[in-house]
Every structure is written in C-alpha cells, then in structure tokens.
C-alpha cells in the first residue's frame, strides 16, 4: 500500500507509547455554509474520513471498533455555523504541523476547511471539557423584535436562574446563572444582532434556547429567522481565558498567562 503506515505494528505491546505520549495535533477548522446543518455524530465520522484521506499517521484506539483517536469540542447545534471548531488528533509519529494542515485541507470539503494546526501538550484534559467558554453571534428576525425588548427578555430569564426546555421528548434544565457569562443586543440591519458568551457547566446553554426563552419572557413570538455562529472558544482558568493553542509551559504543559 502506498503512503506511510500509520501504526507501529511490528512493535511489542509494551514498547508502544501510551496514549498521552503520542503527539497531539490540534486543528482549528470552520463549519459553515450548508455543512452548518451537519449533526455532531455525522461531523465526527466526516472528520475521521478526512484524516484518513489526508494519509496522516493517525493512531487507532484499541476498542472493538478500532476508531481513530480524535477528540472534538462540544457539539454545535444543528444549523449553527462556526469559525472556530477544534479537534485533537493523536499521531503515531510527529509530522510537520504545516504539512499536516496542507494534507488535511486537500482532503476536506471547503465548508469544513482546516485553518490552523499546531501541537499541544499530550496531557492536557479532554478537548470537549477543556474548551469551556464560547462566544456566539446571532442575527434574529421576528415580529416585534428589537434590541431593547430582547435584552429585557434575557434579563428576565437570567433573574429566574434556571431555564427548562424540551429537546425531542426530553426535558432539559439549564443553570442560566452559571452558563450565561455575558450578553449584548443591538439593532442591526435585517434584525437584532446578539452577542452571547457562554460557559460549559452542566447542561449547555444553546443560544437559540436562550433567545426563545427571552422572546417568551417578553411575550414575543419566536424568531422567524435566525442565524447562529460560534466565533470564539477558550478555556477559563483562574478567571482568565486561555486560547486553544496556548501558550503552554513546555515543562509541564500547563497554560501560560
């Protein structure tokens, strides 16, 4: 088979590196245009196929299904686009990050294009839990929508402290006090533009759910048209925000200020 073999198959099990020692390549990518409607599980399968097509020396897990070792950030709601999604890929051997990025770009649909890649410390916590802060931008249109009323609605929701909604047949409870970090509404061309800052703490606060609850709170109908985009993710540590690519301490891998 052409291309480099991705797995050190001739080594004895005890000689193989443990997972944390494998090079951990972090890739930033976008999710936009029609692929905003791709669900999270479908996204995971798609990215795995892109990695295989890119012929990177990916590491494979030892489970029954022999999956590529990848970690993803928290799921985007179906229909939401993003300029800042991430996955961490474990490789069996280091590859130049820029070469890996080029190979990935060539093997990935444009609407999921990778934009940046760099190695991060192997022992960082799982990506989904580590990237616990998100910034969102929304553009909402609806009868009676204006920035002041929506802002009032959000304040009412925040005062209640908790928000419940149905997802399918399941009732979800969101602790608004701890998950909603910041909010700003302004009138814009084509509707109301909103900036929402959320924190991952228990059940995730989805921006659309917040907007719907805000509209309900002030007696407005739900938004007739809505665009949601995640524009920034980060890790919150001791009150400061760490960027996904660090910097990190070379010695122990902890984020540097």
């Amino acid at each position: 088979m052409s291309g480099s073999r991705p797995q050190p198959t001739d080594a004895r099990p005890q000689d193989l590196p443990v997972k944390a020692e494998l090079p951990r390549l972090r890739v930033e990518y976008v999710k936009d245009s029609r692929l905003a409607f791709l669900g999270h599980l479908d996204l995971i399968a798609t990215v795995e196929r892109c990695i295989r097509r890119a012929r990177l020396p990916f590491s494979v897990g030892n489970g029954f299904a022999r999956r590529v070792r990848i970690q993803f950030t928290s799921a985007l709601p179906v229909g939401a686009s993003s300029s800042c999604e991430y996955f961490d890929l474990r490789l069996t051997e280091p590859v130049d990050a820029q070469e890996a990025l080029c190979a990935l770009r060539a093997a990935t649909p444009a609407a999921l294009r990778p934009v940046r890649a760099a190695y991060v410390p192997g022992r960082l916590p799982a990506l989904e839990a580590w990237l616990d802060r998100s910034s969102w931008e929304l553009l909402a249109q609806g009868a009676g929508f204006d920035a002041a009323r929506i802002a009032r609605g959000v304040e009412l929701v925040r005062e209640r402290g908790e928000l419940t909604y149905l997802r399918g047949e399941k009732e979800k409870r969101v602790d608004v006090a701890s998950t909603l970090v910041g909010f700003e509404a302004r009138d814009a061309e084509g509707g109301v533009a909103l900036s929402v800052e959320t924190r991952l703490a228990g059940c995730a606060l989805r921006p659309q759910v917040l907007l719907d609850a805000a509209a309900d709170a002030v007696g407005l109908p739900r938004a007739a048209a809505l665009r949601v985009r995640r524009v920034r993710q980060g890790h919150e540590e001791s009150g400061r925000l760490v960027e996904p690519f660090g910097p990190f301490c070379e010695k122990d891998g902890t984020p540097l200020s």
Partner: protein
Amino acid sequence: MRARRENLFHLLEPLLGRVEHPARYLDHEWGAVQDQEGPFHLCMVYADVYEVGQPNLGVAILYNQVNAQEGMSCERCYLPWKDMASLMRESGVPLLSLEGAAPLASFDAVGFTLAHELIATNVLETLDLAGIALTSAERDEDDPIVLAGGPSAWNCEPLAPVFDAVLLGDGEESIVEVCACIRDARAEGVPRAELLRRLAAVPGTYVPSLYEARVDEGSTRWGYAVPRPGETAPEVVRKRCVNDFAATDAVAQRIVPYMGIVQDRLSLEVLRGCARGCRFCQAGMTYRPVRERPADQVVSGGVEGLLASGHNEISLTSLSTTDHSQCEEILRRMNVELEGRGIRVSIPSQRLDSFGVDMAAAVAGGKRGGLTFAPEAGSQRLRDVINKNVTEEDLESAARNAFEAGWRRMKLYFMMGLPTETDEDVVGIARMAERVLEIGREVVGRGPKSGVSVSISVAVLVPKAFTPFQWCGQLGPDEVRRRQQLLLHEIRDRAIRVSYHDADVSLVEGALSKMGRAGFALVRRAWELGCSFDAWTSEFRFDLWVRAARECGLDLADVACEEFPLSARLPWDHTSPGVSKGFLQREWLRAVEGVTTPDCTRTSCTGCGVCPALGVHNVIQGVRS
C-alpha cells in the same frame, strides 16, 4: 412543458432547520460530481430517503458511467422524508436533484432504481412531488423521459404505465445507449411517441406503452403483454449482460456521505451472478451468468478506494462472496495490506460450511461479533425442495467450527411458506436452532456466563417472477400467523430468540410481485389514500392497502395466494433474463419431487439457457471448491 433548469437550493435552505436529519438534503459530498454541465441531463432516483438510497451500488455504477460521457451529466435524487415533503408542498418547492438543486422536472431523463416491490408508492410520490405526470400517457411532448431498472424490474407490470422505458439487466452499457438515443432524438425534434419507438430498438429496453395486455384462456387473469398492432417492438425483450465484468470499475462508490447511511462502508462488487440455483431466489436466476472479478483487481481496487474515500470498512459484496474462487487469497492479501489501519473487511453472507467459517474468521481478525447462516428451511426434505444444497452435517460442522473459533452468537435465517411445507418442517426450524445452541454449549460450556445464544429470523416466501416458484401462491396471512405461533410455541429455550416478518407486509409484497399491468390501479389508489414508505415498518398502512384493493375490486390475499397453471402465459413473459421458461418449469417439477440441481460453476451445465440465449458464459478466475 419542461421545467426550467436552475439552481433552487435557496428555496430549500430555509426549510433545513425545520426538518429531521437535514444532512439528507445537503449534497456537496466528497466525490460527488459537481460539474454538471450537460448539455444532456439525467437524474438517477432512488425513491427512498438519502440514507437508504445512497448505498445502492446500481445507482453509483450508472452515475459514474453517464458522468464519464462527454456531453452527459448525471445527478442524484432521493425522496425527502415526510416532514420535508410536506414543507416543500406547503412552500411550493418542487423536488430537486442533489448536485445542481435543479427541478427533477427539468431533466432530459429521470431514472428510477426499483430495488424492491414495496417502493412502488414512493415512485408515484416522487413524481408527484416533482410535478411530473404519473403515467407515460399523461406526459407532455417535452416532459422528461422516465426510465426504470433494477432487481424489481423483473415484474414491473404494476408500474408499467408509469415508465416510458425499462432497462433490463446490467445497465452499464445500456444506460449510455438509452441516454444517447434520447439526446439524439430530442436534437432531431423527433416526437415523443417516435422517441419511445427508438428506445425500444435499444437492446434490453422495454417500452411498456408499445405493448398491450391480453387476457385469454391460456393466460392468468392478469393476461400477458404483446406488441400493439403495428408496433415493431420485440415480442420478448432480453436483458443486457456485461460479459467482461473485469473491465468495469472495481469501486463504483466514489461519493462519501456526510451522514450515517444504512450500509456505511465502501462496497466492492467482487462477483456478479450466482449459480447455486436456490429456487426461491430471483437474483440467483436473473443475474446469471457468474462473473468473478480477478483477485488483483479486488485487492488493488479496494485499497485505492479506501485511500480515496477515507472509509474505515470495506464490504466485499455479491450474492455469494465466499463462492469466489479466489476468496481466500483476496481476504489474506487485503488483511496484509490494511493491517494497522483500523479498517474492517466484511463479507455480507457466509457459506454454510467450514470454509464459510474460515472466511468469516479471516475478516473478523480477533473480533467476534455475531455470525449469520441461512439454512432457509428446517428439514432436509424442504431444503432439497428449495435446492439449498446444504445438509444437516454442513450446518452442524459450521456451527461447531464457529463456536470453537470463538463466536458465541449465531443468527439463522429461515423462510416460511415454502412449497410443500408442513408443520413438521416448521417444527424443524425450532429443532435446528436447539441443535445449534446445544453444539454451542458443548463447545463453550453450559453456564449462564457462556454467552451462547442463537437468534432465528423467519421471513415469508414471496414467490417472484423468473424463479421456479413463480407459479406458486403465497401462503395466506392467517396460515402464516398460525405457523409463526407454532414455531414460537416450539421454542422452549430462552437463549433462542425469534423474529419474523410481518404477514401483512409480505402479503402486499406478494400481490405486487404477482400482478400484471392492471395492478397499477391498486398502486395508484394506495398512494392516493396516503401510502408511501411502505418498506418502513413505522409507515406501513395495511388498512389503506386493504381499502385501496377493495375499491379496485381486488382482495390482496386472493391476488398474492393465487397459483398459476404451469402452462399459463405469465404477465412478465415478454421480458427475459435469459433463463428459459422450460428450465424454470423443470426446476419446479424437480422441486416438487425433492430433487436437487447442482451449481454449474462446480459441475457441468445445468441447462438454464442463459449462456446460449445471451452469448455469455461463466467467468471463474480460479477453481471453485
């Protein structure tokens, strides 16, 4: 009048946030042919949702063939799920193709794949959503030419009024010829009726409107089709057959879906046709002769396909993969090539003997999921009737080998309602399952932690056209239920799980398999009453089918269970897969006597008639064991 060709995705996009699984409608998958310049445009339709239709190999083969032609383009279309269909109707959005998001009604030709009989109402739903007239007779001069093909085209008479032309047999070559014929006729400004006559002259192309159904004392109540007076269409349309199978692309699937689909893996067709001669099997009769792809092509094509697609599983598909004379070599070489890449090789069906188990072990590596065998009948007598050439000893030794090789879960497929079946044969299914379970316990141990279990799945025989059982009536639904209860009653061990097909679904399938052209009234009425997605358990509405049948003066059980005289002219006699009627009659008589017929790829010719009729022959790469 033909709809204008334009990209209407902007009309669909606002609906995406309001439906389940919007990924069904996204297109732009890796490998999809986005450059659809034409000027000739074909749209291949699988009339079910994306995740069911996208894995279809037939659509993939024809898509590649047409797109490879200069000046021809081929797009795909699947039937939207009910939520989207309803929103589209509400918003006035017509059915669109995937690649160009162009109205289906704007294409030069629209080709349906008839994968099974229960897709019939979905074909009408597709046309209606597209704004294309449901029948050939109702279409305007410039409307798309509606084509069909696929396994269920072997009795397409209940849908014959829908199609302008039906392509019989292998479509690789004929789809291009048919498209060229349409293109040239359109360029010359030939009237639609004349265009259809030209299509009838393309070998393997059946044009239903050029035929009429006649009922006489020599036919069944559905009659038989003959060319209309004055028409020169062939009295019998023979299928097309690709003899040089190795000259076709090993990997037809180039499109990598975004969403999870029902067979979410790369498929590679390792051989076409099967000569084992199971008498219930329509595919076994209609896909002859047997043509194996060389091992080198399978291995290199598979590896190249995996690299290009990024799939983590490859399925070596065919009607009987372990019959490939180089099966062992293929699996060994693929395992070497793919080692360490986290890629699984799978084969869809295991031969019921030790070799089958060895091959299953070869693809499973160290993993042991479940293993599936298909004895089909519970007694040796009945297995001889259906020409399933396996013995009790074959099954027992295969089961023993499998348990010894580490498998713990065994699945066995059976059929109910086979000709000459008695209660003793039904009870035999239970005994066979118990015997397999007992073998498992002997090998693995009897403790509750041994994990040994057997599940049996029992389908209802639906007699199909061009099989030796085509003259049989289907077992009535009440009797099916009684025998299912008998089987359940006979299963006493909790480690044996039983599942069986719904008798009502099988009844509708049986009626659709049996009817002639007049059966279209039933299909149309069922669709008008709201039937669609009949193959989905959740959507199947037997009450509506019963009502539709009543309104058409029919009784479903009466239709499905009717026996045809062996000498009768049948509704599908004007089409031919090459297997002679005489062979099928002989096979029926041998079935009744319990006499088996060997596989011509292992012995000598058994006289099915395919090779001389079509000028073809079996192509076996090595020696079959």
